[in-house]
């Protein structure tokens, strides 16, 4: 484990001790999933071979057409409203602070990240605006209207960064 005085490997070759190979257990392909008899019965055995929760739920849950605000929970909605008021009054730092508060409550709500991206853009941080929008997109499966808004925001952020081609690309995805 101690770093050796050797550099990048030059070559690989089988170990000279060939007996090690011959005494090796027969090569068996380990199964991807244990046989049912080996698994405690209380473990859910869905389509995924382990107790890992099925990942499809995330997209099911957030399915819906428009990312309407009424879909949001009480606290997140309340904080987005506060942030909007602060942003309207020119208090961008306060708005960002409220939005991060909302993010801590609902870290996977893409609308929170979307609003935060908008505030960052207003603050002149186009790079973060784009990154936040991209993070929001990763949580926006099944919400095409919100996705379009996010791509539009990415387009604006790219324009501000002088990336016209990237902006056009993003705008195309916003339109599609």
């Amino acid at each position, binding site marked *: 484990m101690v770093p050796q005085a*050797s550099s990048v490997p030059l070559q*690989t070759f089988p170990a000279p*001790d060939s007996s090690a190979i011959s005494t090796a257990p027969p090569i068996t392909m380990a*199964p991807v999933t244990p*046989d049912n008899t080996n698994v405690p019965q209380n473990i859910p055995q869905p389509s995924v071979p382990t107790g890992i929760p099925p*990942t499809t739920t995330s997209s099911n849950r957030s399915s819906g057409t428009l990312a309407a605000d009424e879909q949001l929970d009480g606290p997140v909605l309340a904080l987005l409203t506060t942030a909007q008021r602060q942003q309207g009054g020119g208090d961008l*730092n306060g*708005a960002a602070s409220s939005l991060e508060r909302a993010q801590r409550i609902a870290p996977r709500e893409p609308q929170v990240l979307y609003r935060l991206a908008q505030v960052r853009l207003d603050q002149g941080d186009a790079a973060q605006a784009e990154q936040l929008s991209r993070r929001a997109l990763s949580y926006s499966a099944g919400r095409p209207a919100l996705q379009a808004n996010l791509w539009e925001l990415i387009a604006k952020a790219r324009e501000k960064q002088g990336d016209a081609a990237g902006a056009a690309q993003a705008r195309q995805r916003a339109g599609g």
Partner: protein
Amino acid sequence: MTSRKRSNPRTSYIRNVLGWLIKLSLVGLVVLAGFAVYFDSIIQEKFSGRRWTIPAKVYARPLELFAGQKLTQRDFLAELDALGYRRQGKVSGPGEISVASNRVELNTRGFQFFDGAEPARRLQVRFSGDSVAGLSSAADSNLAVARLEPMMIGGIYPAHNEDRILIRLDQAPPHLVDTLVAVEDRDFFEHFGVSPKSILRALWVNASSGRLVQGGSTLTQQLVKNFYLTNERSLTRKATEAMMAVLLELHYDKQEILESYLNEVFLGQDGNRAIHGFGLASQYFFNVPLNELKLHQVALLVGMVKGPTYYNPRRYPERALQRRNLILDLLAELQVVSPEVAAKAKEQPLGVTQSGTLANTSFPAFTDLVKRQLREDYREEDLTEEGLRVFTSFDPILQLKAEKAMSETLKRFDGRAGSAQVEGSMVVTNPETGEVLAMLGGREPGYAGFNRALDAVRPIGSLIKPAIYLTALERPASYTLTSVLADEPFSVKGVDGKIWKPQNYDHKIHGSVYLYQALAHSYNLSTARLGLEIGVPAVLKTLQRLGIERDWPAYPSILLGAGALTPVEVAGMYQTLANGGFNTPLRGIRSVLTADGEPLKRYPFQIQQRFDAGAIYLTQYAMQRVMYEGTGRSAYNKLPKSLGLAGKTGTTNDSRDSWFAGFTQDLLAVVWLGRDDNGKTSLTGATGALQVWSDFMYRASPLPLDMPEPGNIGHTWIDANSGLGTEANCPGAVQMPYIRGSEPTPGPGCGPQAPPGQVMDWVRGWLQ
């Protein structure tokens, strides 16, 4: 004539004397006036500007309250206790709570945050199971969100210092001013700075008792003495003091002098830190804000003015109690309060908290992190003098759980060889925000010594492996989770001719294994082969993108974790893995306000996408298999399988370092165990650090890991035996995630079904 003659020298003598006297007194007056002007300038200078320097104060995160929040009633009450809330039958003012079976009523205190003021208000919080079922206030039966005031967790003090919490006169509780005036300076509102009456009374009392009982100094004189003069006992000083007191009264009104006095007075010593002012004394002795003090507490603090050390209620409770009751009697005698009220107050216990926990910070590792961050952005004087308010992400509830997990788990190891020397550290973060929530710098909670979380640089062993697999999985054309790797011995010759010959931990050879299995079981041979195939420089590049800023040489031994990192660096590396490939610099500070509550600086959430979401998804999947069937599986002895934990063990040679790093949806934790002298332990990553980690997660009851599925990921049915594509209904068919386009080619399907014997073969192979 003679008489005139005779009188002449006399009168001239008198005249001379008179003349001299007049001249002298003129000179005296001029001198006096000079002094007065001089003193006046001193007074004005000090009093008109900033009167005190105040150390920065560090606050924990405020506890948020909203319906649906994951918070047990027990943890909520623990937080309220720590904030000094008092349990009452009925809530009637700030800082009071009343507890029913599944309901807590409280009156919050209100607080000025970065984004606005949180009002003090009556709240009702209802609990159901492990979460908040409902929140309401007097005005709103369905309140969306509220937050408590944050707990103060420390300050930034110079080596020797005065500390205080500034208060305004209107924040003084009832009777504080009355009591102070009654005890220290009865004529305060009548005199002009000095009080001949009190001096005479003091003389008389002292003479009749034969010792120095009363000082006769007015509050103004005391303030002047504390502010401008030394402790020297001389007539000159006394005269200066009197003169300055008169001047102070000429310039400033009684209210202002009183407010300064309340903030200035010395009330105790806490190590190197001097406790000044009633505001801080109230927190230091009773753990409540000044305005919530009750009569008996006010009496105690005012009684301590005379001799804060002599009447220290923690050290001399009897003496302090006597003094307090004497003062309560005096209040009744002077009709400040009724005899009944005084009698009732006398029945109260002293009520001081066990120890003042404000200065010798209870959470040294985390405050250390905050200080280091602040010192990058502020000058030392700004931190120790400007009274800045620093808001952090520190979660005291999780911190206590981490401390408990560490100490209880290490206690179980007692008796094992070398276990007494085993030290530990831990970092807990929120994977989605990058905020540091808790930190342990050693196994002993609250002990401020070597902060291992930030400063112990130790080889990370197999914790590096996810970086190797991620590098491979970013090349879907070459590698998938079911690529077959050869777990067979080999050696590599370096440029210097030295041979590197890795071995598996169990010294066995596992033959052909799927890629994800090599990670799950932490096989060294197959991992090292994979790492060499993709190249050590490529792995180093991945580490860099994961946030590691170390300049490691591209040696093959790096592939098995020869490189050394601190626990907090490991947390940063795993943060990116846990957060969908988005790198977020770890943050401990949210914002900084000035002493007046004006926003000064924010430490915003910042992210940067560093990896393809699909490659990260696959890596997380393999890390979940580590927990499900690999080296991390013992975690599920304690935790429900539904959590879908993802993580990795790490063990270095001779078990000198025992590591575990892993995450759920909302918590990421890194644990290191080992010895400061780098000696051997009996702990592997799985038998040591993982046990602490699991115990912590058990206490913290995290949210299950639910990875959003990236668009480029698809799930494909494959045959467990061959790794080839198959049908869902075929025996041995399992589903695996692949980056689209990298799915294995379809196999023969299950037209003629595989003989059951072969299935049993691979079950046996898996079991051994």
